[in-house]
């Protein structure tokens, strides 16, 4: 137990060091790309608390990201708030929305919750269109261009990188403290048997709502960062399919493995931002020529791999890696 804790702390320190030196090793564009991966990582981290520890599923986290993005856009464009300070507010607004969704979630089991949250993902984009005075309708809102604040001497790309990964690191530590302490044990107890947990005096309602609110907070922060980095926000910034990608990437990467979450975040990044390039890479293979006007190959590969992984591995890539590399990584990543 001592050793495990030590290794986990060591792992976090190594990660902090890696995050700090990375921009020195890569160019601006790559730093910007890695920042985007970091945003998906934050959202996945929140989703992993919800799904991995409380056993609830949400197909609507793309909508919580959109709530975060809109909070940032409206505050900074219409009210002149510095974009940096909108991030925690965006997290809170999304978190409160998550708590509200968490209320019916108390009464609904996994499948119904999946239905409701899928409904949120599909129908959320109608809200900004309907209330266009407030949200900017389909055109959306244009934020100020990404720039380095406080006279810091860093490129905007490095700035958004440090900002994203700094927040990601803090949120990772928070999640780590959360799941390895009493709340994590409690949530696991609820996940494994609600009846047994309730009999042991656990307030199921409170913990389930906390898990939902917290994961929505993470998604809101991720959405705010995304809106700042892209410098615009409209209903298409977070497409419906993003919610599906998030759950799918979590399943593919493995729910309680840090490496798995990074893999998952990278996959989402490629699917949403680099899909054309994937088609290009595939075209380099001998005897293959895909029409770049017909995207979809990345989705085909992702869908097929996801199904295969679920059929054969069950615990995702992270779980498979953990089994393959046995004792060392078990101590590092497994929180059970």
């Amino acid at each position: 137990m001592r050793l495990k804790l030590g290794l986990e702390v060591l792992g976090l320190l190594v990660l902090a060091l890696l995050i700090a030196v990375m921009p020195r090793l890569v160019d601006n564009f790559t730093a910007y790309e890695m920042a985007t991966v970091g945003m998906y990582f934050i959202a996945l981290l929140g989703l992993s608390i919800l799904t991995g520890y409380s056993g609830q599923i949400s197909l609507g986290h793309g909508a919580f990201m959109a709530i975060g993005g809109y909070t940032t856009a409206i505050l900074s464009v219409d009210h002149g708030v510095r974009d940096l300070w909108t991030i925690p507010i965006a997290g809170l607004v999304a978190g409160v929305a998550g708590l509200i969704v968490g209320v019916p979630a108390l009464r609904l089991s996994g499948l119904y919750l999946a239905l409701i949250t899928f409904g949120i993902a599909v129908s959320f984009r109608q809200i900004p269109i309907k209330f266009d005075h407030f949200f900017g309708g389909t055109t959306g809102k244009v934020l100020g261009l990404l720039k380095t604040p406080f006279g810091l001497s860093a490129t905007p790309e490095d700035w958004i990188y440090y900002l994203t990964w700094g927040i990601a690191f803090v949120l990772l530590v928070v999640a780590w403290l959360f799941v390895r302490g009493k709340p994590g044990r409690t949530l696991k107890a609820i996940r494994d048997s609600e009846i047994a947990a309730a009999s042991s005096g656990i307030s199921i309602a409170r913990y389930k709502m906390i898990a939902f609110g917290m994961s929505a907070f993470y998604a809101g922060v991720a959405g705010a960062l995304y809106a700042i980095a892209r410098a615009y926000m409209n209903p298409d910034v977070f497409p419906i399919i993003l919610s599906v990608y998030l759950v799918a990437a979590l399943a593919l990467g493995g729910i309680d493995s840090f490496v798995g979450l990074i893999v998952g975040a990278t996959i989402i990044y490629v699917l949403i931002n680099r899909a054309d390039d994937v088609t290009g890479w595939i075209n380099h293979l001998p005897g293959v020529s895909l029409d770049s006007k017909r995207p979809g190959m990345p989705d085909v590969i992702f869908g097929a791999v996801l199904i295969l992984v679920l059929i054969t591995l069950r615990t995702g890539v992270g779980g498979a890696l953990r089994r393959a590399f046995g004792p060392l990584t078990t101590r590092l990543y497994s929180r059970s």
Partner: protein
Amino acid sequence: MLLGVFTWTEFAQQIVSGLRDGAIYGGLALALVIIYRSTRAINFAQGEMATFTTFIAWSLMNHGLSFWTAFPLVLAIAFSGGVAIERLIIRPVENGPVITIVIVTLGLAVLLNGLMSLIWGGGNRPFHGPFSTRTIDVGGVPISVQDIGIVAVSFALVALLALFFRFTKLGLGLRAAALNRQSSELVGVRVGWMLAFGWGLAAVLGAVAGMMVAPVLFLDPNMMQTVLLYAFAAAVLGGLDSPLGAVIGGLLLGVTITLLGRYVGFVGQALKLPTALLLILLVLLVKPNGLFGRVAVRRV
């Protein structure tokens, strides 16, 4: 939003167009219910499966086939596709947690969506249905032939399906497998194949819904995403395990949403989808088994 003058003629037209939408939602909801009854999971790929088969119909018609020649071909393809999907990718996770099945169907949805843009390209295109869009006069109310056709085809399909379930041995086997798996196995029902058959039927229902809705909307890979949400709402409203409930739920939903969208200025076109979501939520919280569902009893 200007609502204009209320006329009974227009009201009747709205009801008919609501029934048309409702028939489509009901058809897709029925597909969801058939799969839910056999697998206890919701097929999130149902919309994509329907769109995929509609694209096949579009291709066949592009190669010179008439709609009614392509129709049975597409249904046969849909059926084999549904069976193949169950055998190949659902069966291995059938006994796993529900969440795993849900994620597998999500993976299938992503896969099929990608496959559609890969084969046919993104963007929407017109789909020429079998019915003309001209209107005929029914008791003083002009109603489009297409609307009547869609409702008629959907009703015919549901009636056929009801007869099939009620009067054939295969239908009995399907019902038995859905009701009690172990007992069915003991009396010799091949439950595995019944499940596959159920998926095949669901794919056929989806294909019909897709081919009926495509002339109204436009055909593109994401065509069914919103329709699927309405189908979910219809299925939940009727009770997830009741086929009759799915159809009635679909019609009720279609008419309600259409009337709300037309006559309640606040809802308009934009808030139709969120209204459907709200309806799902309300039904689940107030009457989780829907209008026609069996009350679930859980042994502790």
